[in-house]
C-alpha cells in the first residue's frame, strides 16, 4: 500500500511518515502542492493525505484538479480550520475524509485504515485476542472460557477496542465512535476513564496476560504484549 503525504510542515510530515511506515505502508512525502501534483501523475498511490493550507497551490485546488481529471484515489484532507463550512467545502470538493489539526495519531491511523479498507467486508462475527473472545451477534464475551458479564456500554467499548486491537485508540475516538459524541468540548474524559477501569476489572483483573493497556497521553490499546 503506497501513501502520498502532501504537507509543508516538515516535523508533522516526518512524524506522519514514520508513524505510517511503522505499519505496513510505503510512504512518499511532498512539500508543496506542485510537487504532490507531479508525484500523483508520475507514480501510483493508494491514498493521498493532503494538507489544505500549502504554499503555492492550496490543497483544495489540487483536490479539485485531481477530481476534475477523474483521479479516483481516496483523499484525506488535513486542515487547521474546522468550521462547518470548511468541512462541507472540503467534502464537496471531493475529499473522502477530513481531519482537523491537531489530531491524535491513532485517529489518523484509523482513518487511513478505513479509507484503504473501503469495500472490504466487515470484521468477523467473532473476534479473538489471546484467550479473550467476543461474539458480536450474541454480545457474549468470554475470558479463558469463562463468560464475562458486561453492560451495554462496556460491550460497545470492548468491541471497538477489539476491532482496533493492536493499535492505540484515543479518548476522542472513543468519545465519537462509542459514545457517539459529536461535540469535542463535552467533558466525558472522566466517564471514559471510569468505563475503562471497570472493563479492565472485568476482563483483566483475575487473568494473565493483561490485555487492556493505557498509553499515557495517547489513549488505550488492546494487545497481548506491553507496547
Amino acid at each position, binding site marked *: 500500500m503506497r501513501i502520498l503525504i502532501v504537507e509543508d510542515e516538515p516535523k508533522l510530515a516526518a512524524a506522519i511518515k514514520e508513524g505510517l511506515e511503522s505499519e505496513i505502508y510505503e510512504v512518499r512525502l511532498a512539500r508543496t502542492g506542485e510537487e504532490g501534483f507531479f508525484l500523483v501523475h508520475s507514480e501510483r498511490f493508494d491514498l493521498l493525505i493532503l494538507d489544505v493550507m500549502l504554499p503555492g497551490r492550496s490543497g483544495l485546488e489540487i483536490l479539485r484538479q485531481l477530481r476534475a481529471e477523474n483521479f479516483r484515489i481516496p483523499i484525506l484532507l488535513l486542515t487547521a480550520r*474546522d*468550521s462547518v463550512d470548511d468541512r462541507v467545502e472540503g467534502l464537496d470538493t471531493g475529499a473522502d475524509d477530513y481531519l482537523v489539526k*491537531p489530531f491524535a495519531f491513532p485517529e489518523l491511523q484509523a482513518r487511513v485504515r478505513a479509507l484503504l479498507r473501503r469495500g472490504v467486508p466487515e470484521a468477523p462475527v467473532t473476534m479473538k485476542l489471546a484467550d479473550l473472545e467476543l461474539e458480536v451477534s450474541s454480545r457474549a464475551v468470554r475470558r479463558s472460557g469463562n463468560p464475562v458479564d458486561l453492560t451495554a456500554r462496556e460491550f460497545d467499548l470492548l468491541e471497538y477496542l477489539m476491532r482496533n486491537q493492536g493499535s492505540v485508540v484515543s479518548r476522542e475516538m472513543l468519545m465519537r465512535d462509542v*459514545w457517539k459524541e*459529536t*461535540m*469535542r*468540548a*463535552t*467533558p*466525558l*474524559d*472522566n*466517564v471514559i476513564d*471510569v*468505563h475503562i477501569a*471497570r472493563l479492565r476489572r472485568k476482563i483483566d483483573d483475575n487473568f494473565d496476560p493483561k490485555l487492556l493497556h493505557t*498509553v*499515557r*497521553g*495517547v489513549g488505550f490499546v488492546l494487545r497481548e504484549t506491553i507496547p
Partner: protein
Amino acid sequence: MIRRFLRHIRTKLILWHMLTVVSVVLLYSSSAAFLLFHYLREQLVRHAIQDLETVEGLLYIDIDRNMGMHEDYHNNPESKAILERLLEVRSPDGEVLYRNALLGNRSLGGPPFPGEGVGGYSPRTFVMEDGLSVQLVSRRHTFGKTDTVIRVAYSEAPLWERLGEVLAALLIPLPLVLVVTGFTGYLLAGRLLKPAHQMAQRAEQITGSRLHERLNVEQSDGEFAELAQVFNGMLARLEQSFHQLHRFTSDASHELRTPLAAMRSVGEVSLQKHATADEYRDIIGSMLEEANRLTRLVDSLLTIARADADQIVLNPSRFTAFRLVEECVSLLEVLVEEREQQIDVQGDRVVAIEGDWLLLRQALLNIIHNAIKHSPLHSVIRIEIAHTEHNRVVITVRDDGPGISEEDITRIFDRFYRVDGARSRDTGGVGLGLSITKWVIERHGGAIRAESAPGAGTAMHLEIPAARDTGEEAAAARTSTNGVARRDSH
C-alpha cells in the same frame, strides 16, 4: 466623514434660512403692493365720483340741443386731474351727446346698459378699445327735458406706474437681503453646530487605546448634551468590551502558557539525565497530556470566538426537559456510582423545550458534572424540573459541595475564572465550561443563576423558555399530579 456631514448640514441650514427670509420679503412686498394698489384705485374711483358731480354742474345744453361745457374752471387746484379726465355724455338710447377733447372720438362703452347710473355711480373697471384700462363711473342727469348718462373715467396707468415704483423700491434691496441672510445664516449655523463640531473633533481623537476619554457634556447645549451623553454611554460600553477582550486575551495567553511551560520543562529536564525506555515513555506521555490540554483549550477558545462572533447556528428540535436531564444523568451515571453518590430527579416530566439538543446537553452536562465533582462522596445531587409562570422551564441542580463564597459567585461565569484554580486544573478544567454554559443558555433566551453560600452547597438554576404550545398540556399534567413531586432515584 462626520465633518463633511456637518458641512452638509451647515449648507442646508444656510439655504433654508435664506429661502425663508426671501419668501417672507416677497410675501410682504407683494401684499403691501397689492394693498397700496387697491387703496389707490379706490381713491381714483372716489375722485371720479367727485369730479362727475362737478362736471354735472359745468355741462349745459344750448338751444340747438348741442352740449357744451364751461371751461372756466382752470384756476381750480384740481385742474390737472380734470385735464386727465375722460368724459362722455350719451342719451339713454345711446346717442353720443358729448366727448371731451382728451377722449376725442374714442368710446367709453356702447349704449348705456339698463340701470346704469340710476341711484348710484355704477363704478367699474373698463378696458377701452385701445387697451387702456380705466376706472369708470356713470350718472343719469337731466338737463331741462333731456335725459343723459354722464360717464367720467380716469386712466389706471398712473396707478400701475406707482405700483411698479413701490415694488421696485421693495425688491431692489433683495440681493443685499440675500447676502445679509446668507452671512447671518452662516454665523447662526456655525454657532448652532459648534458643539457638534467640537464633538466630532473630540470623537476623532478617541481610539482603541484612548477609550477612557469622553465627550464634554455642557448642559447649555440642550439636545447636543443629550447626544453627547448617548455617545458617552456607547463609549463606556465599548470601553468595557475592550477591557473584557483585553482581559480575555491575556487570560487566554496565560492559560496557553501553562501547559507549554510544563511541556518544555518536562522535556528539558528529562534530556539532562539518562533514563530507561520506560521512563522516556512516561515523559513523552506526560508531554502528550499537556498537548491534549492545549488542544482542548484551543477548541474551547474557538468555540467562544465563534459564539462571540455569532457564528454558531442553532439547530433546534423539540424534546422534554426531562429527557434532556435523563440523557445527561445517564451519561454521567458511572461517575456518580464511582463516588457512591446519588442523583435524584424530580418535577415536571412533560414540559418541552425547543432548542439545540447538543448545545443544551453540553450546557447541562457541564453543570451536573460540576455538581458531581464538588459533592462529597455518598452525597445526593438533586435535580428539579419546574414549569413556571410565563411558560418557562427551570432546571435546578443542587449539590452538597463546599459552596461558593459571595465574592466568587459573581465571577464563576467569567471566562477562565476558577474558584479553586489549582484543583480544577488538576481535574482537567480550563475554566471555560461555565462561561460556555452561560452562553448556550442565554443564546436560547434563558438565564443562569447560581445560589450558594460557603458550607451550604450550591444550586444552579437554568431557566429557558418552554416550547410554545406545551403550556396547556403541561398545566393539565401539573394539576393532575396535584403538585406532588414524583421521585426518581438512581
